[in-house]
């Protein structure tokens, strides 16, 4: 495969794919000044290293990449190298336009055939782990090459095929992230990491699928493991964390019960109240009053 760069807006091959901002392959045979200026892009960039050794700064943190490794750069994150020089080697990359939500999550747009809940789970995994370096990950290379072939050959139904490949890319990347972050040999550690993620974002409407995705397991195995390890189903464990946080917040006078409910992930104060009462015996307001007066 020869060097090439396709850019959205300039390359006719991308006319049907506004979400592919850039697709390219670079072979660098010599060291030139200013050959790799620092960049910040609006899209999600995925680089797969084919040859050479690259020392890049992603969000100002150094990472070293060898052949087979993947650099994953989230939107608006700076990418640079020492003295803006590109070292000798080659890589293939794609840059994808994604929706950016206020929460910091990114979601694929309408072109994607991922279901809403699957897309949410993937974006959660990307967001929580923030893992810019994925090692030994050749699937990415094959997928980008497939996209390239489809774009140049334009066989029947290639538009669908390309979008299909991009979905596949997102799925593979998120699965790889969870595999790299969590090893099945250490479920307690994986569970601790998950628990931290849950606590950092209690207001989020967590699904079992998302939670399982974060530790890199299927939902069935995940549910079984959590039950074994904690004694609770994943959702009940989450409710436990939510209610303990509620107890802490109810002891402070400066936050309303409704705000507490929303902060910790109940969709209404009524729902919160019922759950709280079921578990603790008190209605939240009653707990607060009682608590401040008696204890």
């Amino acid at each position, binding site marked *: 495969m020869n060097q090439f760069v396709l850019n959205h807006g300039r390359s006719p091959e991308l006319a049907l794919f506004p979400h592919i901002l850039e697709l390219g392959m670079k072979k660098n045979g010599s060291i030139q000044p200013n050959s790799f200026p620092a960049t910040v892009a609006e899209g999600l960039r995925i680089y797969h290293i084919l040859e050479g050794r690259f020392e890049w700064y992603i969000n100002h943190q150094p990472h070293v990449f060898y052949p087979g490794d993947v650099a994953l750069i989230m939107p608006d994150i700076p990418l640079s190298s020492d003295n803006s020089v590109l070292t000798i080697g080659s890589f293939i990359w794609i840059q994808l336009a994604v929706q950016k939500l206020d929460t910091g999550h990114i979601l694929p747009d309408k072109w994607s055939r991922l279901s809403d809940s699957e897309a949410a789970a993937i974006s959660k995994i990307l967001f929580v782990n923030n893992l810019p370096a994925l090692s030994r990950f050749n699937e990415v290379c094959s997928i980008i090459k497939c996209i390239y072939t489809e774009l140049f050959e334009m066989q029947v139904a290639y538009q669908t095929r390309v979008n299909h490949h991009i979905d596949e890319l997102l799925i593979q990347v998120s699965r790889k992230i969870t595999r790299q972050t969590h*090893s*099945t*040999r*250490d*479920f*307690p*550690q994986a*569970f*601790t990491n998950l*628990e931290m993620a849950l606590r950092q974002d209690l207001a989020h409407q967590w699904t079992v699928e998302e939670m399982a995705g974060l530790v890199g397991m299927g939902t069935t195995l995940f549910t079984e493991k959590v039950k074994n*390890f*904690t*004694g*609770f189903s994943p959702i*009940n*464990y989450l409710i*436990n*964390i939510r*209610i*303990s*946080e509620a*107890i*802490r917040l109810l*002891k402070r006078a400066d936050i309303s019960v409704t705000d507490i409910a929303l902060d910790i992930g109940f969709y209404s104060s009524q729902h919160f109240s019922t759950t709280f*009462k*079921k*578990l*603790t*015996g*008190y209605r939240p307001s*009653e707990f607060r009053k*009682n*608590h*401040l007066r*008696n*204890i």
Partner: protein
Amino acid sequence: MNCIITVELGTYGVKVFVYSLDGQVIGSMKGHYPTFHTQPDYSEQDPEQIFITTLYVLKNVLNEYIHPKKHTVASICFCGSMHSVLAVDIKGNPLGNAITWADNRAKKEAQQLRDSPLGKKLYGETGTPIHPMSPLVKIAWLRDHDRERFASTSKFLSIKSYIIHQLTGEYMIDYSIASATGLLNIHTVNWEDDALQYAGITADKLAVVAPISSTAGNLKKAYQQSLRLPADTKILIGSSDGCLATLGDGIIKGEGKASITIEDSGAVRVMGTSVLQDEQMRFFNYLLADNYYISGGPTNNGGNIFEWFTRQFGDFIHQFDMEDSMGQLLEDATNVPTGSDGLLFMPYLLGERAPIWNANAKGAYFGINIKHERKHFIRATIEGILYEIYSIGKTLEEQRPITSLSVNGSFGTIPFCSQLIADIFNKPVQVRPQLHSVSFGAYILSATEMGVYQSLDDTAVKPAEPLHVFTPNEQHHQIYADYFRIFERLSDKLADEFEAISNLQQKYAHSDKSLTHDKP
């Protein structure tokens, strides 16, 4: 039918058991809560989550095993881990997280106190070794490093005392958990002035010390309703996990019996009617009940070390998870001759408490030759963990003869390990399969309180439980005795090198502290 409920507040979670009066398990459930390591050496738990989890599990147990069958709950008895500290304000609100036994932030304070004449004196008065685990030094640490929290604290509680206070409104602490604080005079059973003074507090900052069989008032109305329990349900304050495991093992009566617990960490305990005094301050002494002292030595390096080995060297390609991998390793270990062909392992991966009390101690394999294979390392690792247990037992035996052993805890009761213990100690080892010693101890305590047994002495033989007995193999013992002599000498001789490597490890420590975490 009358039932007894036991609630065990452990390090990793809460376990609730329902027993019939004659000691049969009717049902049980558990709930996990996490430990947070916000900084190296810190180990904390969220008291609210512990409370919610406890309520949740208790409620589920009642709804599953008690209410549908119209059983009556005769009593609910609590057991808890030792050495936790939770500061609460005047309203009983937690001021931050609870600091658990595993927290080492007060390392420096402990070392200073231990080396001082006051430390020796306090050990004599309280029976508790001076160590960062001890609430005595933890409170002193709070006084010096977290003045705001210290100043707003109305009471320093144990996690168990907090849970009981949440349920009933009473501030109480049982003898054994109180004696494990390092603040209780074990001879007079009062808070010790010297210790209070050292910690910078007065006795009213601590809960009321009470015998294990004390009841702690009535359940608050809301909990009576939500748990559907009558107002007069007895809430027994119970005891500590270590003491109850010993009681549950049935070794209370008669001298000469020792109980070995090996879970993640481990302990060797003996029962007696007097305190073990030790010049070198190696043993703990906890008061179970009037004139029942549980003495012994704790180790940091038990099943957690085997788990470490499994994680590093286990086969995770063919075995899906930890348990399977461990099983495979154990099987491989059985194919290695006794003594691992001269390969020795010092298990001090987490420093060590008893008997060497050296926080700088490190692990080592010794005697490696070209013929040693992976399987030798597996067996040597297990043997090393058990040599360490033996070295505690041996030091204890200098003061109190041991004739028979009971083993409990998930690692110790693996048949292969139980047999090794028998061989290394050259003493018969008893195991009660399927027994949850801590909860069973709490059952015994409750049942005695209800008159099922006449006294704690009486419970040693009842209820009859099938025992597995492992008989020592004299030949194996000889081999182990030979190797153990080297093991013992190595621990001693390496002390300087442990310190040297420890200093270097700290000097060249990776700057990223977030990577250092111990197991939750």
